């Protein structure tokens, strides 16, 4: 009933897509699975002249790898494919765990890993229809000057809610990025600006083509716990990914990564808590609790409609504590539902 207010283009290769994006900077938007983009379109949050539909690029769907060379997952592999892939299940159960917590099965059948990695930040005041937003001056994310989350704030406090990203950062994963200047590999962690308004560091002509998990990371043991108001079809209120490199006995932690999602414009690593975990033995409950406490103190959080900042902080602490214990296989009562 509505004519599309844009033209759909179907590039034949990733390079062609980058080419097109470069030629139409600010006018084109990439669509992978579309599960998030379509909602934003319906809410009139986006306007562009060209929709670059990359779903027809089969080379971006491959999942390959082994324990020696690491794991490579094409950006267009759906979250469901990642979740069900025997290869990923064997080599990287942490990612499987997180991919399986996105949305619902139906959403995961559409949504892609690349799309989840590049997911836009969200906010109660931004992700609303044009009618809703129409009665207030535009917020910073919409191009205005006000933030309704942090009044008189001068940056955008929209939240990062992609479940797969904290685990990827905890695994020191990388992305292969293709642009007009060619392609390059950079850490997933470096993709995020920390600014809710434009959360990604990708250039206007750049696309994430592949997610790479280095072989060394495949030996880390990890857990992702998602705390959300609902079991399914909900963004994380807090998501905590913990990946530990244990000694050969599986007893002492040699390297730690703790990444918190859902509470800021970018997933947050908590080096202070990571440091405390190194050299830690599996039975040191008190020290695990201390690391969780320090970790929860080290991040800046804001209240929202669902939960106060204080509650979120408590949840971060609880989740870090439980995630670390679970990595050491100690906690019989996991917090995250399922």
């Amino acid at each position: 009933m509505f004519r599309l207010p844009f033209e759909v283009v179907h590039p034949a290769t990733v390079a062609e897509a980058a080419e097109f994006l470069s030629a139409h900077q600010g006018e084109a938007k990439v669509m992978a699975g579309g599960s998030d983009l379509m909602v934003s379109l319906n809410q009139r949050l986006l306007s562009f002249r060209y929709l670059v539909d990359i779903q027809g690029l089969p080379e971006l769907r491959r999942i390959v790898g082994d324990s020696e060379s690491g794991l490579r997952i094409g950006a267009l592999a759906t979250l469901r494919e990642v979740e069900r892939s025997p290869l990923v299940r064997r080599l990287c159960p942490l990612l499987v765990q997180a991919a399986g917590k996105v949305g619902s099965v139906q959403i995961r059948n559409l949504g892609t890993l690349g799309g989840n990695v590049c997911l836009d930040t969200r906010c109660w005041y931004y992700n609303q229809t044009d009618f809703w937003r129409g009665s207030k001056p535009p917020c910073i994310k919409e191009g205005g000057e006000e933030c309704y989350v942090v009044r008189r704030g001068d940056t955008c406090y929209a939240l990062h809610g992609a479940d797969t990203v904290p685990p990827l950062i905890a695994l020191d994963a990388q992305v292969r990025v293709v642009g007009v200047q060619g392609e390059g590999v950079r850490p997933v962690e470096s993709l995020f600006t920390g600014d809710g308004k434009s959360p990604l560091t990708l250039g206007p002509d750049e696309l994430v083509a592949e997610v790479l998990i280095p072989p060394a990371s495949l030996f880390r043991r990890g857990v992702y716990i998602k705390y959300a108001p609902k079991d399914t079809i909900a963004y994380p209120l807090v998501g905590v990914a913990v990946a530990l490199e244990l000694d050969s006995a599986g007893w002492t932690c040699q390297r730690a990564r703790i990444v918190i999602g859902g509470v800021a414009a970018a997933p947050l690593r908590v080096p202070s808590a990571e440091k405390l975990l190194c050299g830690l033995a599996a039975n040191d409950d008190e020290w695990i609790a201390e690391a969780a406490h320090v970790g929860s103190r080290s991040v800046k959080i804001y209240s929202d409609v669902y939960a106060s900042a204080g509650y979120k902080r408590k949840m971060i602490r609880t989740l870090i504590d439980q995630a670390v214990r679970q990595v050491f296989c100690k906690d019989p009562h996991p917090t995250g539902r399922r």
Partner: protein
Amino acid sequence: MDALKTVGKPLPRVDAREKVTGSAVYSTDVQLSGMLHGLILRSPFPHARIVRLDTSEAERLPGLRAVVTGRDCPGIRLGSLVKDAFVLAQDRVRFVGDEVAAVAADEMETAARALALIRMDWEPLPPVFSTEEAIAEGAPRIHEEDVRPPEPPLIHDSARNIGVRIHIRKGDVEGAFAKADHVFENRNETSIVHQGYLEPNCMVASWDAHGKLTAYASSMYTSGLRQDFADVFGMPVSKVRVIGTTVGGAFGGKISFQPLHAIAALLARKADAPVRLANSREEEFTAGRPRVSTVIEVQTAVRDDGALLGRKVRFLGDCGAYTHTAAPMLIVLSGRSDNLYRIGAIETDAAMVYTNKTPIGAYRGYGNPQMTFAFESQLEEIADTLGMDPAELRLRNATQPGDTSVHGWKITSCALSEAIKTVAERSGWSRRTPWAGRDPGALGSRPLRGFGMACMVHECDDRHSQGFAGSVATVALREDGRAHIVTGEGDYGQGSRTVYAQIAAEVLGLGHEDVDQSSIDTDFTPYTLGPWGSRLTISGGNAVRLAAEDARGQVLEEAARILEVAEEDLTLEEGHVVVEAAPEKRIPLAEAARSRIHRRNGSPIIGRGAEEPDTVPMDPTKQTNPCSAYSFAAQVAEVEVNPKTGQVKVLHIHTANDAGTPINPLALRGQIEGGVLQGLGQALLEEVRYEEGKILNPSFLYSGMPRASEVPQIDCVFADSKDPYGPFGAKGGGELGLTPVPAAVANAVWNACGVRVRSLPLTPEEVLKGLRYPRRPRSRARSAGPPSNPENP
């Protein structure tokens, strides 16, 4: 009746095929030739004066066929009992979403562009968002003029923002409180909850050359809609035809005339073409008619032995910008829950207060879940304080068959006590130990389990007026031996069509698949009150039963002529008329029907049934018996509280229901289970959240309804109960599932961890805040930390 063949069987729904195959026609599927698409322009402000409304630019848009504003419907007022609303805003808007103007165009896109071209100047007015603020001295007035006041016992006072108010006093209240050993006093709050039906409100309107309006409506309220259209457009009801399409869920939310209906008809008249007008999901949340949020203060006088002596209630409901159904709702909710126990003295001061929020409407239970939450939460605290088992306390006070309640209700069938005992037994209630007696050291990391109980009473078919309060139906027997029911009572998903088919089949000795039914069309189907108050089985079912019995009499008369025996010697079974003494002597029903139709001076077999209960219009200020029967239920929730997060996981909901003898236990079970899930949403997370009059979560993503993965085990049993009035002993059961859930869950949380949340929903944050850990010195400071690893960056 002995050995029932169809009634009482768990038969699949007669409308399952079209639902499953997707061929059911909803109002949004209706396509009429030349049909236009309408859109509504809604107020973005909670409270403002319209200074200028200029539609000229929009009107010039090619493809735009009609624009309507308040100027097209001056002086027309809407509302039930208190007429304080308008089809389209006259000079003021009173909530975000208030209807200001509407357009119709050949294309939806043109309509959307036209909306954007309507120019408006506003003068903001001070808004009021909470009931306490609204009734405070000097609060901004939301309605400037007093409307025609409602009839006593209702009081209306728009100067104080009181939409409707009622004051009830029964028995010796002072005496009860003077004699009491204990007085318990609590303040409870419940949230605004949307019904969450999947199909948004939609209507297709069409006017014919004779000025007759046809409305295809997704509505539970077909006859009422016809009357309201007639009133709004000043024409006789025969100039209105309402066709009830398949309804994709309603739960009370489609039980009233809403501005959308009138606007669709206005647009169609002005454009002289059919118009389709449908709400978006956001519009459903913003301008639907959700459940009223409440503040309920309860004081209960109790004797040491657990006898409930008296109760005082102060109730404030937030009825939003217009009273809509708040007036009848206040009458119903202010007294109903008092009839659950033998309480001798009651004082209730209840009011529905205007605020600049979405007007509220009916939602499964009609105020009962809120009152039940307040009363039943307190009851469990009373029991624990007295050192009594809460089940025992309830049994001691429970209403019994033959009772006349504090409000004059004459209780006939009542298996409340049995339901309490059953649900206690099936849930393992004896394992419950009061929190107070437990070691708070149990608050470790382990999940904490607890039990909570709640009971409820609900009306069946309550009488609102001295006029018609029954149901009529006809049952015809076709010449092929199939029966055909015509009733005005529509099936909105409850399964009433299946129940009616079973009733008619039982009476006529047919299978339920041999019974057809007309869909709802006010040109052909009889007048109906609508499916509120759990009345379809008891009232509509009785009408179908009477009609089928009348048809049965006609069949027997005809068959007696053919078989040359006396009518009394005949019976109907398996599609035949059978001579009881000589079963081999039989003719098919079809033969009797054919003969009756085709013989000289023939006429079709059409049985008529009219039921009218012997009841008195509900007035909680007087002693009245408004319902033909009363249904009861008891529930136990078993929950697990995570002491680290405050999350509540509901493991089991055990329900024991007195809905009489179920006509279709499968359909009734579906009603109970669906209700339980809605109750869980309301208990744990559902809340329409406002900020400065705007809804922050107008979508299913954030509405808090339970997901499929969160469904607990639901145990559903029916008490051994046979109602003397209901068809085959049945009573209404549609509202039994939802009502006790919030109280049962809150009680279970309290039992699990000692946290009493008096404000719905019971969010994890609230639960966690209430947890009282025993104080323990922290041992954070350690002299030597673990060795640091230089390799770790």
